[in-house]
């Protein structure tokens, strides 16, 4: 099976007084038929990367191949097989849903009929409605329908669910899964870890324009060494760090402000040990919670920052 996307040593520098290296030596290989996620905080270079892959931006340096074709050589052939949903596009409000799709369909040599695209995104009943009358979720589904109209082999989605309500997000995930089930490829960028975990076969965690971790969500979480996280805070004092690491099955310890996070592999062993330890030390708990480890923990472990924080805390 040929690779859907190959991207080697990709660099993008935005010129200026202080040049910004948005993408800084990024490598990717995406298989045909997988749903691949670029996960990272805002400003990590996800959108720049995906727009270079989409042929909307020129890279400063690096090679990109889309199904074996290169931008600058076979642009039209690449565009014929791509379906793209940009981060924010406001389609013409005065046109109806059907008119919008008919317009987009006219740009492609082959594709599906507008009604089929609408059926795929469950927007059939809005066929004759003006775009301006649609809800946010419906508009986003129409944008996806526009991406599907050319019957693409490869679907690019930049932050597809940002700003949507939970129900619309789930609908969109279903649409993407259905598309993937036909053996085609999806590349999605997101800063929602739950989205990446549920949707993607593989994830590249991106930070400062580089891939800092790559693998399936399971593998990445497993790399932490512990499936569970215990978080707690104390009423007084915070000098326990060294002692905590010696507790059974604790893999790593992190402290942020007054909150301690323990990555543990066996919760039923670690938790009683922790409570004993606190009692012996005469320390009073203010708060304690446990949860499954997530990609967020992977990111925090790798960078010391949270996904939502963006670059401001770096």
């Amino acid at each position, binding site marked *: 099976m040929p690779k859907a996307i190959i991207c080697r040593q990709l660099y993008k520098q935005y010129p200026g007084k202080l040049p910004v290296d948005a993408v800084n030596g990024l490598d990717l290989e995406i298989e045909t038929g997988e749903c691949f996620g670029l996960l990272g905080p805002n400003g990590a270079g996800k959108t720049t990367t995906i727009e270079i892959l*989409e*042929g*909307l931006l020129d890279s400063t340096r690096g090679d990109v191949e889309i199904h074996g074709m290169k931008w600058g050589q076979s642009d*039209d052939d690449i*565009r*014929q097989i*791509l379906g*793209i949903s*940009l981060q*924010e*596009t*406001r*389609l*013409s409000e*005065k*046109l109806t849903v059907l*008119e919008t799709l*008919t*317009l*987009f*369909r*006219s*740009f*492609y*040599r082959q594709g599906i009929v507008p009604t089929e695209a609408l059926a795929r995104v469950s927007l059939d009943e809005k066929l004759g409605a003006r775009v301006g009358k649609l809800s946010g979720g419906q508009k986003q589904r129409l944008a996806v329908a*526009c991406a599907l109209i*050319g019957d693409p082999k490869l679907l690019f989605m930049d932050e597809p669910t940002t700003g949507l309500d939970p129900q619309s997000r789930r609908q969109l995930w279903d649409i993407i899964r259905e598309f993937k089930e036909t053996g085609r490829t999806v590349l999605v960028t997101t800063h929602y870890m739950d989205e990446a975990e549920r949707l993607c076969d593989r994830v590249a965690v991106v930070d400062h324009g580089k891939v800092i971790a790559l693998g399936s969500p399971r593998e990445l979480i497993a790399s932490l060494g512990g499936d569970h996280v215990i978080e707690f805070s104390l009423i007084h004092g915070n000098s326990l760090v060294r002692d905590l690491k010696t507790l059974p099955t604790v893999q790593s310890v992190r402290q942020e402000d007054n909150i301690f996070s323990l990555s543990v592999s066996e919760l039923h062993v670690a938790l009683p040990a922790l409570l004993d330890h606190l009692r012996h030390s005469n320390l009073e708990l203010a708060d304690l919670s446990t949860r499954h480890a997530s990609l967020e923990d992977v990111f925090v472990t790798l960078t010391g920052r949270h996904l939502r924080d963006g670059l401001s805390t770096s």
Partner: protein
Amino acid sequence: MKNSPIFQLTLARLREFMREPETVFWVFGFPILMTILLGIAFREKPADKIAVDVQDGAYAADAESVLQQFEVFKVTRCPESTCRLRLRTNKTDLVVVSGAGSSAAFDYLFDPTRSESLLARRQVDDRLQRARGRQDAFATSDREFKEPGGRYIDFLIPGLVGMGVMMGGLMGIGYVTVDMRIRKLLKRFLATPMKKTHFLIGIMLSRLVFLIPEATILLVFAWIAFGVKIYGSIVSTAFLILLGSFAFSGIGLLIASRAKTLEAVSGLMNMSMLPMWILSGIFFSSSRYPDVTQPFIKLLPLTALLNALRAVMIDGASVFTQTGPIAVLVVWGLMTFAIALRIFRWQ
């Protein structure tokens, strides 16, 4: 045909336009409103009376009694200071002063740069001379000629048609294109296999299609309301209007090719339209400007369009005599389209 991208892009623009009530009024209603107002201001009316003052003096009563017999004069008798004041403030066209000599002669006091005063001088002199016994060398009679064509409204209508073509081309394309850029719709189109030329052609074509009802409404309205006729060929007139629209669509695209905000494109549009508003002769002939400026003025696309339109519509000239203006319009259209395509900012 139905699935051709140019057709679909044009159709989408037409639909968006027709579903925007404000623009529809602006494009179709505004020129008609303007025609009505200007038509009222410059309507045909009987010639004004000639205001003549007779200054107090030896033969004043004599002159007054003669002139008062004629409807065409509005005679006022007043002392010298009042007469001079009225002449200076434009209340009267001419002052008749009793001559200094003993023979009953008159002096005419007037401003020779005012055409009404020159007319008044000839009329008054004629009446007074005849009253004193001057004989005409032969008999004459006046016959009325009332054929439309030379009136102000006849001059104005081609001007308004051209103005509509200019504003439609610039504003119709400028705002819409920049708006699509702001909405990132241009970027979205760029992400499809759509050809860039198809998009630009679609926008220009939709302009040409709007123009058919726009110009027709204005011309039919002017014909019904003011009897403004097209003396030349209607096909030639239509051809010139379409050609003008092509040129201004190209200029509109060029203006909109880089702008990122509506404020920026609006400034650029006003900057481009202002010289043509003033110089190209929408409301008065551009030949009023000094001769040295004429070659420049004639290169403006609106001047070319208006000159050719007036030649065909008023003078009844053949479109083939208008090669100069036509060449100007073709060059503007092609040049701006080519540059716009090259420098167009899609995102």
